[in-house]
């Protein structure tokens, strides 16, 4: 092969490579735009004055930005926003703390039968909650808790235990047993080992679990719509009722959607790395 032919060939492969690269980027950008379309529509619709939301102007940018819809959404949804915070924060922290203790027991204090009990616990995170909903409602009525935030907090803590226990158990398996043994030789007991050896190493685990639980509980709908009353409704229930009214006010709905999505979206954007870890931990082996 002559030198020029080699050069020619190399140029050809280079061109081909550049072409493939641009095709890859073009495809990625195309799909990114598709994924962002709903967000675009939410933003332009919620920022339009109500009169401007008409058939032929659905997709155009607002000619004049109006915060009326956001104002109305905040006014309507802020009590529910508060409810969601009041229920999500304690339920998240409690289920994380208990899950951490459980994970510590299951990873560092192995006992006979643990390999049967643990999968049985895990099954609880996969069941369709419809299959426990009627007895749950009965129990909450008997405890006179229906219509209070306590019923939702208790529910979310209990059904959150499988996943929080799982994540912490997998996380603690990576703490070397020697650390525990060294602590035991120094005379540390069960709780001292937890507070002085295990807990200080737990921060990343807690971040993953807290983000996961926060997102799940904030976004939950079935328990909320079954157990809450109008005064204690979390924001997801209120948003769904915003959509169910007779006069369909799209700008209000979209502003409401944005408000509902905001906390979990912020968490995702700021702490996305940990969010993904929780996501992947959901597939049992992590």
């Amino acid at each position: 092969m002559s030198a020029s032919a080699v050069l020619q060939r190399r140029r050809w492969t280079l061109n081909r490579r550049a072409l493939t690269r641009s095709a890859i980027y073009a495809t990625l950008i195309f799909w990114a735009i598709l994924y962002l379309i709903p967000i675009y529509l939410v933003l332009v619709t919620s920022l339009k004055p109500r009169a401007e939301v008409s058939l032929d102007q659905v997709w155009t940018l607002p000619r004049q930005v109006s915060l009326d819809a956001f104002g109305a959404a905040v006014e309507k949804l802020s009590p529910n926003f508060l409810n969601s915070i009041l229920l999500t924060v304690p339920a998240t922290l409690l289920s994380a703390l208990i899950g951490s203790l459980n994970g510590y027991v299951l990873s560092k204090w192995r006992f006979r039968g643990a390999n049967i009990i643990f999968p049985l616990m895990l099954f609880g995170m996969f069941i369709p909650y419809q299959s426990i909903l009627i007895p749950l409602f009965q129990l909450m009525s008997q405890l006179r808790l229906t219509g209070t935030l306590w019923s939702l907090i208790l529910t979310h803590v209990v059904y959150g235990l499988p996943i929080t226990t799982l994540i912490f158990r997998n996380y603690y398996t990576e703490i070397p047993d020697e650390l525990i043994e060294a602590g035991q030789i120094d005379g540390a007991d069960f709780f001292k080992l937890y507070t002085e050896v295990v807990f200080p190493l737990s921060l990343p685990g807690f971040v993953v679990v807290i983000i996961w639980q926060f997102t799940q509980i904030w976004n939950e709908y079935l328990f909320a719509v079954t157990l809450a009353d109008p005064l204690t409704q979390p924001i997801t229930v209120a948003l769904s009722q915003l959509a169910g009214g007779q006069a369909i006010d799209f700008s209000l709905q979209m502003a409401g959607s944005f408000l509902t999505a905001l906390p979990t979206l912020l968490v995702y954007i700021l702490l996305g790395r940990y969010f993904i870890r929780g996501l992947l931990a959901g597939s049992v082996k992590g």
Partner: protein
Amino acid sequence: MRLNVDRLTALAVLAPSVILLAIFVYGFIGQTFYIATTNWQGLGAIEISSVGLQNFEQLFVGSGLPFFRFREALVNTVVFTVLFIAACLSLGLFLAILLDQRIRAESLFRTIFLFPMALSFVVTGTVWRWLFSPRSGLNTLPTLFGGAPLPADQWPWFTDRRQLVTFTWADASRLVVIAIIVGLLAFAVIAARRRRPVQALITGLIGLSLIGWFFLGGAFEALGKVVRPAHGVNLAMFSIVIAATWQMSGYTMAMYLAALRGIPEELREAARVDGCNELQVYRHIVLPLLQPITLSAMIILGHISLKIFDLIYVMAGGDNLRVDVPGIHMYLTAFRGNNFALGAAIAVIMLILVAFVIVPYLVNAFRAEVSR
């Protein structure tokens, strides 16, 4: 001595969680099974008596709207599950492979594909309801480029009443049961050949008892009588699949991407040295290594789709039979119609469907862990 006290403390710390889950999961499931075998309706103090398996029987062969609705919901769930899993797997794999090509701004793209996962199904439902509303939303997208909006009667999205294929419950259900029986028996034979007697025995026995119930117990005949109204693959379901895929495909992408990053570069390099081009590297090296991830993803997505409720309930409302699913039907039957017995029966069937997917998965995961 110290160690024994600590061991007891450990058990005592775990005990409350175990007890709570025993009650809230297994106790409640038992209670739901029990309710499903009664005639409990209404909220007042009425007499509740046992009716055996009558509620289940009615759901599968009874005439009347609630029972037809259940079967329609079951058909819809199967359609939804198949399409949703196929869409999420293919799109997720596609995007993951693209992102694995040493892309600049990879994290930006990843964030964009994954952010819908952070949203509530209620938000997704509200937003896509607007996107798919026949007289605005996506149908008016052409107006942005000066075109005419798509006609609402041809693009009704989730309000679509058309069906792609229609079939009777008699045909569909009997075909499915026969397929399950054949599958079980085939599995039993394979297990026996591979000298796994326990697996062979269990699946074989289930298969044989299904045959007994189906052909001798009269189920075949009873199912055969249910011929009207017809069921079908509802076009409206595709809108739900699109919205759900928008939300969940980022998840499969993240799973695949993590797995792709776990494949050592030397392996691909070795294949290239052996003369494979990029496509062949993927076909012969990468894709086979992704199989376990695909299985996990199918199980996770499958159990989500079998119990889906909020997305469809918010997007299409509770009364659109064309997109009805058991999750919605159960909720409305029990908590709007106060027919707790029938609601419980639907819930039990949902649980059994999910258990078929999840139990082998858990058993497998822990058997692998024990032997490790």
